[in-house]
């Protein structure tokens, strides 16, 4: 029976170790990216790396508090946490501080706090609560709408604050809902829309429509019994409409700078002069970051030896572009190491989530994995030029207190829930 009591404190150390490995390695790279010469002062508010070490120290307090709170608290108070969080987002419209065009910060003395970072965790809790409610049936349209509303409110609020990156993160909940039984056609629909949009932009609306028609007719030919002709016509009209709609949207509604990002991503621009121009203007960061990563080679130039990092060639390198420092100084080996660390963390959380007994913990765990995954996918994908430029940080790795604390809260609530699974009935 003694073992039983021990299990109260059985935290998942693998996740915790991975968490600290990522945070620690991240700090080393922040040091390198923000070092400007002189002695290294480990705890100082005047240097980014010094601030980050203070942020990291403070995470210990957060961790102790979160693990100290009764696990049931999170489920019970999820609605209140969500509402408070939403209010903090709304408050930004009145009290918010504008940094780089986004009104996403509260200024408290010299410190700034970004409530949108914390809203992700709150939303994850709320979604978990909603889905795990015994009255909720994810297959009913009404419940789907309710769940969507929970997700869309924060997404809309951050979009209105001009923080497109954070808005996209809420797409992560698709993985959660799908896991919990969201009808399959949502997946098919989502995939089709994405693929068709890309095709339409890359090869033109006509080509996209033709490809879609061929696939739809092919599908109809082999599954005549399952689908009616009416459905085929509907699908056809929708695809053609979407193809032209996307094109129209791209040409007339998107702002030039957004067009440029997409055109660069899909390699639509063929004119070398204009391409050079792009590389010097909005794609400057991306171009420099790709060059920095590439120049690292197999083994990298060594810690604090990266010429592009030292020369501050990549703007915002210690925040969104921190991965380019890894690429330059630690090379292929170090970058792959970071990628693998994240994959291990994600798979570990996913594994734990699947092994939860309560649906609330499982959904929440899924939410945690999905949110980190989307961040990881977009950030590293962007820094390496696989995804259009979208400004979101690399979780636990990039410089920034709000982000670090929000992810700490996100992960450690789950660790707490997980440690409590034995007590579930």
């Amino acid at each position, binding site marked *: 029976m003694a073992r039983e009591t021990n299990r109260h404190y059985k935290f998942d150390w693998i996740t915790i170790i991975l968490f600290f490995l990522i945070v620690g390695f991240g700090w080393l790279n922040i040091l390198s990216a923000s070092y400007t*010469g002189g002695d290294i002062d480990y705890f100082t508010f005047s240097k980014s790396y010094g601030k980050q070490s203070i942020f990291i120290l403070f995470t210990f307090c957060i961790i102790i508090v979160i693990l100290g709170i009764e696990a049931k608290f999170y489920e019970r108070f999820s609605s209140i946490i969500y509402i408070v969080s939403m209010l903090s987002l709304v408050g930004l419209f009145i009290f918010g501080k504008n940094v780089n065009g986004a009104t996403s910060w509260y200024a408290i003395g010299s410190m700034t706090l970004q409530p949108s970072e914390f809203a992700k965790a709150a939303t994850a809790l709320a979604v978990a609560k909603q889905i795990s409610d015994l009255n909720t049936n994810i297959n009913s349209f009404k419940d789907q709408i309710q769940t969507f509303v929970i997700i869309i409110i924060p997404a809309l609020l951050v979009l209105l604050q001009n923080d497109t990156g954070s808005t996209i993160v809420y797409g992560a909940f698709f*993985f959660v809902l*799908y*896991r919990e*039984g969201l009808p399959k056609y949502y*997946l098919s629909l989502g995939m089709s829309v994405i693929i068709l949009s890309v095709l339409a932009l890359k090869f033109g609306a006509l080509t996209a429509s033709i490809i879609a028609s061929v696939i739809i007719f092919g599908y109809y030919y082999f599954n005549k019994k399952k689908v009616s002709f009416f459905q085929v016509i509907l699908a056809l009209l929708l695809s053609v409409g979407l193809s032209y709609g996307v094109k129209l949207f791209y040409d007339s509604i998107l702002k030039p700078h957004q067009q440029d990002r997409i055109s660069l991503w899909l390699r639509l621009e063929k004119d070398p002069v204009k391409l050079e121009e792009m590389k*010097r203007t909005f794609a400057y960061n991306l171009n*420099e970051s*790709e060059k920095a*990563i*590439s*120049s*690292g*080679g*197999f083994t990298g*130039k060594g810690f604090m*030896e990266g*010429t*592009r990092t*030292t*020369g*501050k*060639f*990549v*703007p915002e390198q210690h925040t969104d572009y921190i991965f380019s420092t890894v*690429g330059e100084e630690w*090379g*292929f080996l170090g*970058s*792959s190491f970071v*990628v*693998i660390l*994240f*994959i291990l963390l*994600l*798979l570990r959380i*996913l594994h734990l989530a*699947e092994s939860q007994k309560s649906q609330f913990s499982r959904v929440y765990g*899924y939410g945690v*994995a*999905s949110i980190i*995954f989307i961040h*990881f*996918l977009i950030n*590293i*994908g962007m820094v*390496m030029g*696989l995804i259009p430029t979208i400004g979101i940080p690399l979780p636990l790795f990039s410089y920034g207190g709000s982000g670090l604390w929000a992810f700490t809260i996100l992960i450690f609530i789950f660790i707490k829930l997980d440690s409590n699974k034995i007590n579930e009935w």
Partner: protein
Amino acid sequence: MRQLFLFVSIIFVGILFIFRLFYLQVYTSNEHDLFEDNAIRKVYDYPKRGFIYDRNGELLVANQPSYDVMVIPREVEPLDTLEFCSLLKIDKEQFIKRFNRAKHYSPRLPSVLLSHLSKQDYAALQEKMRKFEGFYIQKRSLRHYQRTIGANVLGDIGEVNTTDLKKDSYYKMGDLKGKQGVEASYEKTLRGVKGIKFIQKDRFNRNIGPYKNSTFDTIPEQGKDITITIDSKLQEYGELLMQNKRGGVIAIEPASGEILAMVAAPTYDPNLLVGRERSKNFIKLRDSIANPLFNRSIQGVYEPGSPFKLMNALVGLQEGVITPNETVTCYAGYKYGNRFMKCHCYIGKRNNMISGIQESCNAYFSTVYRKILDKNSNASEGIDTWSKHAKSFGLGDYLNNDLFVGQKGRIPNRAYYKQVYPKTFYSTYTISNAIGQGEVATTPIQLANMVAAIANRGYYYTPHIIKSIEGETVPDKFTKIKYTSIDKQHFEPVIEGMQQVYKRGTAASLQVKDIDICGKTGTVENFVVIDSVKTQLTDHSIFVAFAPKNDPKIAIAVFVENGYWGSRFAGKIASLMIEKHIKNEITRKDLEEWIIRHSLEDEYAKPYSGEPFRINEYTKLQFVDDSEYKRLKRELKKLQTP
């Protein structure tokens, strides 16, 4: 299934990222190269280029500072173009053109915007330079020629071109490099090695300190001074004598192979190819009909004519087909088959070797040549033997020396004639070779070298231009004796014949008191194609000589294009040069006077006149006009009062 979706997505993204990293960092990444890294600024420190001295220690080439305005296009900020242009003294259009050219070359590497500012312009610009971001002034050193002589010997330096940049990564845009002459052949010795400083930049292109504490920086290595074998006084004299003529003069010191003088006419003032006017002047020189950039003394390939008879005499003796005393009867020419080669001997004149050389008898040497080729009744074998002997004198191949340009010339062998005479081959087929015409072709330097080998009685040193390099030894290929395939004793009768040329023969009028000169005249027919008609021009005047007979100090070959017979122009110049070198004063003022009095410019204008013209005996000697004559006299006077 639903559980797997996120799991699979994560794994897929992980693999995708690692592939992308592999592509970026391993597949497309080059080794980290400091020079390729635009985060590192490279600042060059140019060393002093080595000076050039003549054999008597007289300074010929020194340096002068020069300032280039450089531009790094992508670092340029909007500027007051009008002010900048007025400081540079160029108009706006030019500025834009030059700027775009630099940008086209590379937006991130420095290019020269404007080269060779004058000192005044530099001073005015220097003060305002910081207003113009992306531009800077690079100090370089240009050549300063102390004398106006030896342009073809010394050569010049000029900006590297794209081929140079590709071939040798040492050179960067705007660097200067030896382009011709000694400057080119001793480029690496003269230039030294530039120093380099690596400076870490930030993305605003500001210097933020030395890269890795200057571990990789190097200090410049000064260029070395060199001394060349040219005697500037002799060179100057030669150039003066060759004015208003075209051709080449090469004088060699037989005991060392050192080139005492290398005159190419026409020549030019080497200072023309310095500084901002360089490319303009270069094009002018290159496109002029007289082509002064063409170094006739080492690049001009001519049929050697009669001087080559010396070669045939030597081969005849060596092969034992004739003795010095054996006589050949001349019938005012030589009949072979049903053809006839004319000679200016009287009918029935009997020549032995000495008088054969003295009178330059065509019949005598045709006989010798045929005897050589028919020695074993096999002309194919014979011509190969003959060719080998001639080649042992350095004829028909590159001398492989330290002159930047050169020509092979041609000494034919059987293989050469295979095309024209695939099956049968008789000695009469190539009889013109007997008198140094036909397929034989040499450059003046090869001929001078042949004479040096005769003067040495059987050996020579590769003719070269380098006398000493500061702190280095001269390559041993220039101090190693090269033996010809002719035994020593066979030279005496030939040298005796060459002495008779001066005493009684074709150069009897060119004797110099107290100097025993051995020489040989040459008169060579030559042709050009005018409007696709092969047209004969006035003969080339050729002369070779060495002196003194028993202790040779100088061997010389003189080619004067269209100068008619050998002793008319070439012989006179050779005698004067020899006297100048040995006595350092001129007693044959009459020869000197004659040479500067006469010009061949009319002769050279004929083929381009578009009108019919006459040659040789139907030409008139042209006098230089009065002002030109006075100018030459003045120069001559300057030369004699040191």
